[in-house]
C-alpha cells in the first residue's frame, strides 16, 4: 500500500529531483510557520499553556483505563454504541461491517488521521462502498489517486496549477477563472449533493470527553457537520489516547492545537457530538457509533514511548523540520510524516521496515521546541536509532563506518591528527565560507552548501590558549 517497494533513499532522491514538489512544500509550510509565529506573539501565555497541556495529557495517560471506562459509560448513556478494536484491521472491519449493516452505498468521510492509519479508505474501496472524501484536501488526494502528504494539509504536495488541472478534468461544473477562490467554489458545487445523499458518515475525533461521552471535531470548512448530520448513521473512529477529562480540558488543549497547526486562535467550527438524534431534534443521525482503537498505543505505553501519546496531531513539528521541508510527506512512507511520523511509523510498520526514518533527522531540536505538548521527539528518535543498532538492523556499511570512527575517536592523538588534516583539506575547497562541491561530499552539496570548517581545530586553539597565547 505504501510505496513499500522503494527504499527510503530512492524515494528521497525522487522527491529532491522534483522541482514542483519543493515549490508546493515551501508555499504551505512557509505560510504555516509565519502564521504560527504571529499567533505566538499574540499569546504570551503560550509557555504556561503548553506546560499545562502537557500535564493534562500526562494525567489522562496515567489514568487511561479509568478514563476509557468513564467515557464508555457516558457514551452508552447518551445512546452511542461503543466498539473496541485492537488492531488497524479490526477497526476497519468493524467500520465496514457497520456500513454493510446500514446497507450503505455511499459513505461520506471527514478527514481523520486515524482513518488513514487504520487503512479505512482502502477497506471501504475493497468492500465496494462508494467513498466520498469531503475535506477539500482529501478530495484533491482522492481525485489524484495518491496519499496524504501532511496531517493538516494532506494535499500539500499539489500546486494550485495541478489542482486546477484535476478539477477541470474531473468536476461536473469546473471553474472558469484561474483563482484559488474559483477552484474552492468548484469543489463546493461538486460535493454539495453528495453530503445530502450519503447513507453513512465517518469522522474522527480530536478529543473524547470522558465526563459526557462526547467527541469533538475541529474543522475550518464546515465539512464535518455537513457530513455527520444528514446520514442515518454516524461512525466515529478514534485512538484511545484522544481522551480528556472534560470540555474544560478540551478547551485548554484546543488553544494549543489550533495555534500550532494553522496560527488561528480557534478553527471556524468546533463541534461536540454526543449520541444520536435526540427527541425533538430537527436533524441528525439515528445511530451513533464510536470505535476506540488501540493499534500499537498500549505497546507504546509498555515500551517507554508514552510521551508520544501526548501528540495532538497539529503538524507543527513537520512544518518546522528541515528534512520534511526538503522531502515532503510521501517519502516517509507511512501515514504520519515528519518528526512525529518518524517516531510513530516504526511502531506501526516495524523498525526493520522503517529504520531509515529515525535517521532522517538532523537533531536540531526544532520539533521539540515548537511541539505544543513538549514531546521530546529527538530523544524518542534517538531511542529508535539505539534500538536499531542493538537489534542489528543497521547495514554492514554503517557498522563498519562506525567501527572505524570508534577506533579513531578512542585514540586522541590519531583523532587530532586526522581532524587537523581534514579541515585543512576541506578549506582548499571552500569559497566565501562555504563548500559548494568536494570529492566525497557530492550527496550533501548537490542540494545545499557545506559550511567551511574553522582554520584550526578546537584542540589546537585550546592548547594555544592554555599556553597563554
Amino acid at each position, binding site marked *: 500500500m505504501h510505496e513499500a517497494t522503494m527504499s527510503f533513499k530512492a524515494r528521497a532522491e525522487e522527491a529532491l529531483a522534483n522541482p514542483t514538489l519543493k515549490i508546493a512544500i515551501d508555499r504551505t509550510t512557509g505560510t504555516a510557520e509565519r502564521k504560527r509565529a504571529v499567533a505566538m506573539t499574540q499569546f504570551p501565555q503560550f509557555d504556561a499553556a503548553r506546560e499545562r497541556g502537557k500535564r493534562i495529557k500526562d*494525567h489522562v495517560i496515567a489514568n487511561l483505563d479509568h478514563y476509557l471506562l468513564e467515557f464508555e459509560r457516558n457514551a452508552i448513556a447518551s445512546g452511542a454504541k461503543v466498539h*473496541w478494536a485492537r488492531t488497524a484491521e479490526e477497526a476497519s472491519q468493524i467500520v465496514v461491517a457497520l456500513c454493510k449493516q446500514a446497507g450503505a452505498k455511499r459513505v461520506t468521510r471527514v478527514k481523520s488521521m486515524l482513518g488513514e492509519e487504520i487503512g479505512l479508505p482502502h477497506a471501504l474501496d475493497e468492500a465496494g462502498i462508494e467513498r466520498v472524501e469531503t475535506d477539500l484536501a482529501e478530495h484533491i488526494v482522492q481525485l489524484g489517486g495518491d496519499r496524504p502528504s501532511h496531517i493538516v494539509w494532506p494535499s500539500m504536495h499539489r500546486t494550485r496549477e495541478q489542482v486546477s488541472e484535476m478539477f477541470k478534468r474531473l468536476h461536473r461544473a469546473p471553474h472558469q477563472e484561474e483563482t484559488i477562490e474559483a477552484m474552492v467554489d468548484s469543489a463546493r458545487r461538486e460535493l454539495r449533493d453528495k453530503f445530502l445523499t450519503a447513507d453513512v458518515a465517518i469522522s474522527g475525533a480530536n478529543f473524547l470527553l470522558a465526563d459526557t461521552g462526547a467527541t469533538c471535531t475541529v474543522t475550518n470548512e464546515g465539512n464535518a*457537520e455537513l457530513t455527520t448530520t444528514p446520514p442515518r448513521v454516524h461512525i466515529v473512529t478514534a485512538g484511545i489516547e484522544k481522551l480528556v477529562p472534560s470540555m474544560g480540558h478540551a478547551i485548554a488543549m484546543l488553544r494549543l492545537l489550533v495555534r500550532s497547526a494553522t496560527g488561528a486562535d480557534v478553527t471556524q467550527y468546533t463541534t*461536540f457530538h454526543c449520541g444520536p438524534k435526540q427527541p425533538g431534534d430537527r436533524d441528525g443521525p439515528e445511530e451513533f457509533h464510536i470505535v476506540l482503537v488501540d493499534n500499537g498505543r498500549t505497546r507504546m505505553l*509498555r515500551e517507554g514511548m508514552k510521551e508520544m501519546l501526548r501528540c495532538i496531531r497539529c503538524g507543527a513539528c513537520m512544518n518546522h523540520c528541515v528534512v520534511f521541508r526538503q522531502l515532503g510527506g510521501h517519502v516517509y512512507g507511512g501515514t504520519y510524516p515528519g518528526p512525529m511520523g518518524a517516531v510513530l511509523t516504526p511502531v506501526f510498520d516495524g523498525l526493520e521496515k522503517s529504520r531509515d526514518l529515525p535517521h532522517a533527522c538532523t537533531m536540531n531540536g526544532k520539533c521539540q521546541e515548537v511541539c505544543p505538548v513538549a514531546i521530546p521527539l529527538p530523544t524518542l528518535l534517538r531511542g529508535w536509532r539505539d534500538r536499531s543498532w542493538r537489534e542489528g538492523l543497521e547495514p554492514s556499511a554503517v557498522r563498519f563506518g562506525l567501527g572505524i570512527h570508534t577506533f579513531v575517536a578512542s585514540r586522541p592523538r590519531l583523532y587530532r591528527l586526522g581532524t587537523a588534516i581534514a579541515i585543512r583539506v576541506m578549506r582548499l575547497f571552500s569559497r566565501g565560507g562555504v563548500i559548494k562541491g568536494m570529492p566525497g561530499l557530492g550527496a550533501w552539496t548537490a542540494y545545499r552548501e557545506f559550511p567551511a570548517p574553522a582554520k584550526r581545530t578546537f584542540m589546537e586553539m585550546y592548547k594555544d590558549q592554555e599556553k597563554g597565547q
Partner: protein
Amino acid sequence: MSARDTILNAVRGGLGNTAVDPAAVRREADALLQDLPSIRPPLLADGLVDAFIARVTSPKVAATAECIGSASALPAAVGRYLEARGLPAVVALQPAAALQSLDWAGFETRDRVAPDETIAIGFARWGIAETGSLVFHSDAETPILANFLPLHHLVMVRADTILPFLDDYAAATTGQRPPRNVNIVTGASGTTDIEGSLVLGAHGPRYLHVVIVDEQYDSPNQRASP
C-alpha cells in the same frame, strides 16, 4: 478475551497501575483547570460586547458585526444588509421563537434551509468574547444544517449572553445533558488546503454577519464590563 478487555488489560499492564481512586483522579483533573488566566489569551477590550465585536471583525475571523437596540430591529438590519449587497429579500429563518416572533413583513421567509440557500437568519444561544464565536445547540429550534448550508449567514445574539471565555461556556453547561451537537462557530467557512492560502466559503457560509441585540446600544459607554 474481548477486544475491550485485551485493551484495558494492556493499558493496566503498561501503566503498572493497581487500583485507581476516582476521587483522587477527579481532584487532580480539577487542579489542572486552576488559574485559567495564566493559560489563556487576554480579551481584546474591557467591555464584553466590545471585546466580542473586536474579535468577530478581526482579520483572523473576518466576519462583520453590528449592534441593534432591540430584537425588533433585526428585520430592518437584515433589510439593510441585503440591500447593500443587492440581494433579494428572501430569507430562511431558523425555527427559533426569538426570530419567528419578529415582524418579517416585506420579506419572503422560509422555514427550511435549501441546499443552495442564499440567505439564512440564525439565533445563537451564546457569544464568546475570547474568540468571537457563536454557540448553537441542536434542538427543536436549531437544525444543525441551517448553520452550514447558506451562503450568507446572519446571526442574532443577545448581549447578555456573551460570555468572556470558552471556559465560561463549559462552566455554564456543566452537569446538563449535552445536546447531540454543540457548534462553536467562529467566522465564515474557510479553507487553506490549496497552497495554504485562506479562501472563504469552502463548504459552509462564505459570509457571516453577527447582529448583537444590546439594550445599552444607544448609550455605548454604559456597556457591561466583565
